[in-house]
């Protein structure tokens, strides 16, 4: 039982940064902006979070620094693409490259330094309930933020007038402009929100997941978050589903790769056979399984073309220059 709880906790920890970064990017893309710089903003959040936490001794201040770092870094993208109307794809890619390089340079003195981990929630009485206690009341604070964020963004996008306005801008910025909606202002705020989320996701990596600084520690998670948004057809709860499917299979394949088949000779026959079957694949194939499975599942749940069409921001990635 304890092993199961531990595995579930690992899955949540693996899924949380993906979920937060993807929810942020979802809001950005719903406003019609394609920011491919998620990876760059995430790694900047990671280095900023670890650095400030290391210097101040407080992982909480580090967490705020990670959010601020992502937001400030995304502002660079916003000024380029929104005020100067540069190509969003090229600008996003260069943001990622810049972030990876810059974080490596900023982090040289932090390499190998011990970091402090954000403490897990501990509510006396509740956390010690068997099994569900640790799952519900004993995780790291960012896990709770990620779930709350998903609910809040869903409510904001689909229940509030401001959210409706944001979606309308993503559908047609020219129509929105004709109605007098401040397209550029909405997009600035969306991009900065997305940056803050990416920064927070990076902070999770360097303050919770592996509390230390390693160059390139985001390891492509920003790209996975980007893909999740698209395959989840821009819907928050599907992003959550995607993040957890990815996390689960990722953790699962790590376990399969790590365990020794001989330890299971006494286990029930079915379990033994399944593990033997999985172990028969080359490890490279197992490593690619999370990516494959996530894509397959999300493609299957977005088979309704009409729903996908309705949720796809039609003006995604197009630069907008209002004529005055």
């Amino acid at each position, binding site marked *: 039982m304890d092993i199961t709880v531990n595995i579930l906790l690992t899955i949540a920890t693996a899924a949380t940064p993906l979920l937060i970064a993807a929810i942020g990017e979802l809001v950005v893309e719903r406003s019609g902006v394609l920011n491919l710089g998620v990876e760059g903003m995430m790694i900047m959040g990671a280095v900023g979070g670890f650095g400030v936490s290391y210097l101040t001794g407080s992982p909480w201040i580090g967490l705020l620094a990670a959010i601020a770092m992502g937001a400030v870094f995304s502002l660079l993208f916003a000024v380029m693409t929104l005020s100067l109307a540069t190509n969003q794809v090229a600008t996003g890619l260069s943001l990622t490259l810049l972030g990876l390089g810059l974080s490596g340079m900023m982090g040289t003195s932090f390499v190998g330094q011990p970091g402090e981990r954000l403490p897990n929630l501990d509510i006396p009485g509740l956390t010690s309930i068997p099994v569900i206690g640790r799952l519900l009341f004993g995780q790291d604070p960012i896990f709770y933020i990620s779930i709350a964020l998903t609910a809040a963004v869903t409510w904001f996008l689909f229940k509030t007038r401001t959210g*409706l306005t944001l*979606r*309308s801008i993503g559908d047609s910025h020219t*129509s929105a402009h*004709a*109605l*007098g909606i401040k397209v550029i202002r909405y997009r600035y705020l969306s991009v900065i929100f997305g940056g803050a989320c990416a920064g927070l996701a990076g902070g999770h990596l360097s303050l919770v997941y592996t509390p230390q600084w390693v160059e390139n520690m985001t390891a492509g998670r920003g790209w996975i978050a980007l893909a999740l948004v698209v395959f989840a057809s821009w819907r928050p709860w599907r992003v959550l589903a995607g993040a957890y499917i990815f996390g689960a299979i990722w953790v699962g394949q790590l376990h399969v790769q790590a365990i020794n088949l001989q330890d299971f000779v006494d286990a029930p026959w079915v379990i033994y056979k399944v593990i033997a079957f999985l172990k028969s694949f080359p490890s490279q194939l197992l490593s690619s399984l999370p990516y494959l499975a996530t894509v397959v599942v999300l493609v299957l749940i977005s088979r309704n*073309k009409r729903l996908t069409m309705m949720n796809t921001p*039609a003006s995604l990635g197009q630069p907008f220059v209002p004529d005055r």
Partner: protein
Amino acid sequence: MSANQDGTNLLEVRGLTKIFGTLTACDHIDLDIARGEIHALLGENGAGKSTLVKMLFGSLEPNSGEIFWNGQAVRISSPGVAKKLGIGMVFQHFSLFEALTAAENIALSLDDGSPISSIAAKARALSFSYGLPLDPESLVGDLSVGERQRIEIIRCLLQTPQLIILDEPTSVLTPQEADKLFETLDRLRSEGKSILYISHRLEEVKRICDRATVLRHGKVVGHCNPRAETASSLARMMVGNEVQAVVRAPVEGIATAQPLLEIRNLSRKPATPFSIPLKSIDLNVRAGEVIGIAGVAGNGQGEFFESVSGEVLQQDAGSVRIRGKNAGNLSITGRRLLGAAFVPEERLGHGAAPRMKLSENLLLSRHATDGKAFVGGGGMVDSAAIYAAAQRIIEAMDVRKSAPDPEAAALSGGNLQKFIVGRELDRRPSVMVVNQPTWGVDAGAAAHIRQALIELSRSGSAVLVISQDLDELFEISDAIAVMHNGALSEPMPIAEATFEKVGLLMGGAEPGHAEHTMETA
């Protein structure tokens, strides 16, 4: 015209000027609109009508000039300011969001923060009181153009404006839908509201407008009472000279002529959730005739053109036959080699590559069919021959341009259209298919293009014209078929066709009992 409350006009514009780069789109415009009048703003494409009303609605900022609202000088810096003053606008290119519902679209332009459900109820009530039924829950992407316009009108009326600006509202409507619109406008006028009505359809301006201001090249060239003018005198004011009438001689013995373009049981599944399926279309276009296809935009004309031109291939090779040969599975080039020519609706992007020169665009579309003329020995392009051919087309079609061989994007829409049509005519194709031949083209150029299409057919070619402009179809067609919801009606000989009959078919009535069917919501 109702009496002014305090002797001032509702809106007065003095010396309004807007400059884009080197182009003066509006040049010291003066305009007065009284309370309770329908005021027409007339002008050719590019005369500055849209620029003027965008300044009145706050979408564009004037370079100089003044606007007085109820006698007070005002600065309309954004659409929000215009709405607060009491100016509402129904846009030419609808400013709607396809992925949202009608109610959500309406809510977006109201700033009062009331819940969507109450807005939906208000919109439903208002729409029924004006006889413009509207389902607030429907998705805009699923609605016809006429229904979309209702949303725009209802949205505008919910803001209780004093002045309503309508930018070419009937260009996308069936005649019956237009009649309904005129009733609504009459009622609004009787409620004391003012309407600024932009159009280049002179008959309807004569019918509903009290006064007219005519623009030409960004300047006001006259004011008049449209009811006291004739359509041709109004046209003369707009264009600056006489517009030549198109001549169409009747043809004999069409029934026995050989069909050059045959379409047999052409069906197509919708490519996207918002596009229209084609439902077993049959059509013959014979040598010597022009067949027109009427229909409200978005009823499958685009999908039909793509299937006929070969932009989209068919499973069944026999569904499109050109000069007696199966062509359904051939590419555009394959169909061109059989003697067909195609002019798509979008000029930039489909009809021409915007950043390439006219001569290069000529080579792009004709390198396969005219390879011998344009490509010399060793596969080298014969620039001199292409340039000469481009100049020949430019001369034949009277294309006005600023450089000897400009980029396609540098030409005005009308001139580029003349070049694209001319490029195909120059081949003397035996089958010519044109989608919206004169969309956005001024009257003089449009007459030129229409005459050229008629002459092509009389020299023994089959011509198929898809158009939303009924006047145009009645001017050039020997028979008119109507496309509605992906199905095509039997072609009606022009002698039997009337606006009313065609209009009913456009609205979806069955041909047999067309006289009894009313348009449904």
